[in-house]
Structures are given as structure tokens and as C-alpha cells.
């Protein structure tokens, strides 16, 4: 990663790195190490003193059925959002790729939700599905389906999934379209000449060639659900009703709020850190493969 031609200077390179390293040290490494340290401490009810308790916060967490429930919720949430947004985005991207002349216009019309803040997306969707005033909610109810995301946990989860999917489709669409457009037309045309139908071409040629993009997007979507849906959840359900929409990140925030249970919150943070390291590692392996491919 080094250039052949370089400058010789003793202090300048350090000076140039200083601002970034200072921010990183003060606002990243120091708090992260504090989180690690705090996860081994137990604070008394008034937050006046704390004792070192080794892994008690962790063992309590893993003995708590609520934590497993939150893990399950997060996993279900991630699978649903990734599944829905990837398949819808792929459908739209394949069509946009076919509509050769309109592809650019459709791209413009489909990518803008990326720019909408998660919390704002939450407001948009709660306004449509709020049981008493939502236009769509009334439509659902007039069909005789009981719908109340404010009281029913499953309804709430569905609503959060829909809002999160809506926001993520544009990102997936963009990467799928780029992936599709990089597939050589000659390959597809050759298959068409051999008599392969459109569906067959999709499953045997297009999708396999697209698989690096799919894997990459699956990881990105999981990271999105874990971290970026915080605003959506906070604006729509605050993790409720009765914790049905609480994700791991939301729990870290909720448990530590107002100094509630800082030890447990810190332990959860550390578990999340380990998860992020894992996800990042996977992501980089895929990217390396994608580049090689």
C-alpha cells in the first residue's frame, strides 16, 4: 500500500493524522473500553458505588428469557426485512434492466427513499397504519381483519418490517441494477438463441452470476436491521407492545436509559461489538471474493 515516490518528513505525517486519531481515541476507543469495563461492574441503586463482579452481568443476561426473546425478535426481523426487500428489489431491478430505455428514469423514481431518515419513515408508516386514523388500517379493518399494531405484537412487528423494507428496497435495487447491467448481454442472448425461456435464463444464468451481489446485500441488510432501524422502532413502537418489536440495539438503549441498568446495558454492548466484528469479517470476505470474481 505504499507509493514508490514518497515524501520524507518527520512531523508532518503525524500532524496530518492527528485530528482523526484524536477523535477516534476520545470518542471511539475510550468509550468502547469504558463499555467493556462497565460490563464487569455492578452499580448500586443510586449509582454511587460500583463493585467488580466479573461475568455476573453476562451470566444474568444469558439466564434471562427476555434477552433470548429480543434475540429472536431481532433475527425474525432481519430475516423478514432481508427476504422481502431483496426479493422486491430484485424483481424491480430485473424489470428495469429489461426496460432498457426507461432504466434511468425508473432508477431515479425508486432510489430516493434511501435519503429518508429512518425515524421519518416510521412516522409515514404509522400514519398509514395507525388503527384509528390510518387510511390503510381502515381499509384492512373494513375487510374484517383485526388490525391493531398498538396492542398486538405481531401487527406491530409487521408494521416495523414494512417500514424498514420500504426504506431498504432502494439500496438493494441500486446494487442489483448495477450487478445486472454488468452481466454481458452476449451471454444472455446466446442462451436465448439456444431456446432458453426468460424464466430459465433468470434461474440458470442471471441469478448465479448475480450471487456475489446477493451475498453482499444479505450482510448489508442484516447490519441495516441491527443498527439502522433504531429510529424506525423508536418513532413507531418504542419496542412495544410489551417488547414485541425490541431489537438488541434498542434494548441496549432502553436498559441503560436514565442510568437504569448500566452494567447490563454495557454487557449487551460488548456482545453487540463481537457481533459487529463477526459481520464485518464476513462482509470483507465476500467483498474480496467479489473483487476476485
Amino acid at each position: 500500500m505504499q507509493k514508490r515516490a514518497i515524501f520524507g518528513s518527520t512531523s508532518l505525517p503525524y500532524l496530518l493524522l492527528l485530528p482523526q486519531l484524536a477523535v477516534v481515541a476520545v470518542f471511539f476507543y475510550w468509550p468502547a473500553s469504558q463499555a467493556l469495563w462497565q460490563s464487569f461492574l455492578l452499580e448500586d441503586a443510586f449509582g454511587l458505588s460500583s463493585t467488580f463482579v466479573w461475568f455476573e452481568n453476562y451470566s444474568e443476561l444469558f439466564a434471562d428469557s427476555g434477552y433470548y426473546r429480543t434475540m429472536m425478535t431481532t433475527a425474525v426481523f432481519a430475516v423478514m426485512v432481508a427476504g422481502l426487500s431483496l426479493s422486491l428489489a430484485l424483481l424491480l431491478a430485473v424489470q428495469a434492466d429489461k426496460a432498457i430505455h426507461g432504466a434511468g428514469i425508473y432508477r431515479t423514481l425508486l432510489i430516493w427513499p434511501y435519503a429518508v431518515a429512518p425515524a421519518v419513515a416510521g412516522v409515514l408508516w404509522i400514519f398509514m397504519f395507525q388503527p384509528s386514523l390510518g387510511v390503510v388500517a381502515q381499509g384492512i379493518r373494513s375487510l374484517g381483519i383485526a388490525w391493531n399494531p398498538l396492542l398486538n405484537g405481531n401487527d406491530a412487528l409487521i408494521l416495523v418490517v414494512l417500514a424498514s423494507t420500504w426504506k431498504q428496497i432502494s439500496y438493494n435495487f441500486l446494487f442489483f441494477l448495477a450487478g445486472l447491467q454488468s452481466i454481458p448481454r452476449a451471454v444472455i442472448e446466446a442462451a436465448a438463441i439456444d431456446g432458453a425461456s426468460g424464466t430459465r435464463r433468470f434461474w440458470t444464468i442471471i441469478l448465479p452470476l448475480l450471487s456475489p451481489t446477493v451475498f453482499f446485500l444479505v450482510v448489508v441488510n442484516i447490519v441495516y436491521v441491527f443498527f439502522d432501524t433504531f429510529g424506525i422502532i423508536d418513532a413507531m413502537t418504542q419496542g412495544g407492545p410489551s417488547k414485541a418489536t425490541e431489537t438488541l440495539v434498542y434494548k441496549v438503549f432502553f436498559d441503560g436509559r436514565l442510568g437504569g441498568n448500566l452494567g447490563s446495558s454495557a454487557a449487551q454492548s460488548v456482545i453487540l461489538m463481537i457481533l459487529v466484528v463477526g459481520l464485518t469479517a464476513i462482509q470483507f470476505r465476500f467483498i474480496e471474493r467479489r473483487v476476485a470474481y
Partner: protein
Amino acid sequence: MVEHRGFSRFVPHIVLCIGVAIIAFPVYLCFVGSTHPQDVTSNGQMPLTPGPIFFETYYKTLFVGSSGSTREPVATMLVNSFIMACVIALGKISISIISAFSVVYFKFPFRMAAFWLIFITLMLPVEVRIYPTYKIAADLNLLDSYAGLTVPLIASATATLFFRQFFMTIPDELVEASKLDGAGPMRFFWDTVLPLSRTNIAALFVILFIYGWNQYLWPILITTRDDMQTIVIGIKKMIVTADALTEWNVVLATAMLAMLPPVTVVVLMQRWFVRGLVETEK
């Protein structure tokens, strides 16, 4: 060209139009809701066409604020959001471009260590260190300040990687020529590296502006005063109150105003946006 005859020619357009309509529908309803009085909306009688109070609502939202509480008018929040988004985007770009320049064009002890220190922050998003980071910001007296809203978010592993990748593609001959001309490193940076990086900076700016504008978790932690709120966290606070009291037209107008700047940026600067998004992921 693969089969383009008869009805099948239109299938992609039909599917895409349905997709576009579904994607746009929530925003259309939001706009409609912002133009109807509160009582029409809150008893579930809202029509699907725009109502009569467009100007009143937006004027009130921007300059007066919702009446149920002592909230700041949204114009203040827009200014705060704008400052935050710009400072975060420009700050991240500035400190990342000089870090990358240092790592690529100099040889010095601990060069790789510095690079890895920046790189590893990729794995420490603010969500995994919420309260300790808040405590440090509080200890440094950064609560309710623009510095507090921006500086803790200003480090960027992705931007540093992005610039490093780009610098590696700049031909070595340029440095050699520059050195022959007697230029020092900073001269080379200003006269050669920076002009060459223009399109990359534009691409990154679009992505980072949206990132900054849409920040949520950090601003709710760091701001307590109403006049320091950003628009994204301001909306949420307007609907916390009991349902019947929520002024939906103001809330929805605020949502429209919160979407407008980042969406405009994406649509108008689409080329840079797409490039920034695709390149920073590598």
C-alpha cells in the same frame, strides 16, 4: 436483443409503475395529511386528495411551531439539521483526506498502526457504545452544542479507506514531477491531489450529507434544549403526546420538510450519489 414483441414488451413497465406507485404512496399520503385540518385527520375521515390548508400548515410549522407544546418552530430545527449535516460531511471529508494522504505518501514509524486504528472503528458504531460516549461528551461540556452534535461522529474509516484507495491509483509520475519542480508535500496536496479528488469529494459529500441529516440516536442523547433539536428528532417528539392531541397536519408537514433536503440532494446529484454509494462499499 432478446424477445421484444407484443404484450411482453410492456410487462416491465407495468411492474415498475406499480413499484414506483407503492414506493411513493406513503409520501403522497403524508403530503395529503399535511394539508387537512387536525380534526379531519384524527377521526379517520381523511380524503385521498389534498385539502385546503397547505399554506397555513406550512407557515405555522416553519415559523410558529405546534401549539400543543412549547416546541420550537421547525425553521430552527432545519437550520440545526443543515449545520449538523454540513459540518459532519465536510469534517469527515477533511480529516479523512489528510489521514489518507499521510498514510499513502509518507513513510514513518507506526504508519500501519495508525491506519489500523482508524480502520477498526468501522466495528464500533455509536450503537455499541451509547452511554460511555454520552458520558464523555457530557464531561467535555459538549451537551446542547453544535460541537457535541458533530465532532463525536466525525471520524470515518470508510472515507479514509475510500481516499486511500483513490490515492493508490494516482500515477507515481505526478509525485516525481512535483518533487522535481521542488514542491513540498503540502504544495503537492493542494495543487495535485485535491483537484484530482474533486469528483470523489462530491460523491462522498452526497452520501455523508444524508448520513448526517438522518442522524437520530446521537442527537436525542446529546440535546436537551428545544432550540438545539434537529428536525428528525423534533418530529418524533411531536407525536409522543396522546393521540387526540397530536397535530397531525403539523407533524406530517414537518416530515415533508425533513425529507425534502436529502431527497433533493439524491435526485439532483444522482450521479455522485450512486458513485459514492457503490464506491464506499468496496
